[in-house]
């Protein structure tokens, strides 16, 4: 355990504003996602934004975080019902925060804002899926009180 991150402290960022994403935010979302994943998914994010914009629902949100007018993160999620035999619940399917400002509560603020929407829409649970080797994101969701749920994701190589 040699990393200085084990001892370094961070302070919550001030002046963070959470708002609904606008079409002009999509290039930022594409860029942030590409920095994190190494893949440019311009079409995917445009289509997702358009889908959310065209069919806005009570339990559906695409939010961005702004600090002094600069975009620093985003989150997207929606309520899905009865998939895989599960009850109606909120799903977070995208969350990303600018690497330069991480560990400053921006992700927490985005997550809480999305959960507020889910709660207002009447659901009692929020779920997500994370690569089990993605320690950073897994630890982040754990720190927000999320625990292993009742569903186990299974997969198989197709012959």
């Amino acid at each position, binding site marked *: *355990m040699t*990393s200085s*991150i*084990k*001892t*370094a*402290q*961070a302070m919550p960022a001030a002046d963070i504003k959470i708002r609904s994403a606008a079409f002009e935010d999509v290039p930022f979302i594409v860029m942030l996602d590409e920095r994190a994943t190494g893949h440019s998914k311009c079409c995917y994010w445009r289509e997702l934004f358009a889908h959310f914009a065209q069919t806005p629902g009570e339990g559906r949100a695409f939010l961005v975080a702004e600090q002094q007018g600069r975009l620093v993160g985003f989150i997207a999620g929606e309520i899905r019902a009865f998939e895989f035999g599960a009850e109606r619940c909120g799903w977070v399917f995208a969350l990303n925060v600018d690497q330069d400002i991480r*560990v400053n509560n921006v992700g927490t603020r985005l997550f809480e804002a999305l959960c507020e929407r889910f709660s207002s829409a009447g659901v009692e649970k929020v779920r997500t899926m994370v690569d*089990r*080797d993605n*320690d950073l994101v*897994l*630890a982040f*969701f*754990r*720190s927000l*009180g999320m625990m*292993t749920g009742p569903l186990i994701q299974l997969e198989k190589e197709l012959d």
Partner: protein
Amino acid sequence: MKLQKATMCGLYAVLELATHRDQQISAAEIASKYEISLNHLAKVLRTLVRARLVESVRGAGGGYRFCGNPKRVTLLDIIQLFEEVGPDAEPAPPVDHVEGRTLHKVLREIDDIALASLRAVSITTLLKINEKQKRDPEVKAVVGRAASGG
């Protein structure tokens, strides 16, 4: 998952010190609260000090203090100070029969999931769960009965 005694002592010590980060707590106080041997705890605390997660404050009113980053120090970080965990600690799979390899593959999958959880639970996360447990009436009742010897 069963952890060794030293590991459990280390986790108790870290949780106690991280809960009261503004205070110095003596080894005797921790030993008494968790009913563990003071000698054993002293060794465990030395390991935590060497790992720079805990610092020792000498003199009157001295004791130990948590000095790590609770958001970043994980369960796995603490456990690995005291014991080997994960697939690397296991012997290599037998090469002479398929059954051994099959079992190893499935057990490896279970280990991978356990390791991912240990890596993902930070001290801050543990403290939050601890606070929630304290507010849970069912847990309160069990702890209360144990404290009164009932």
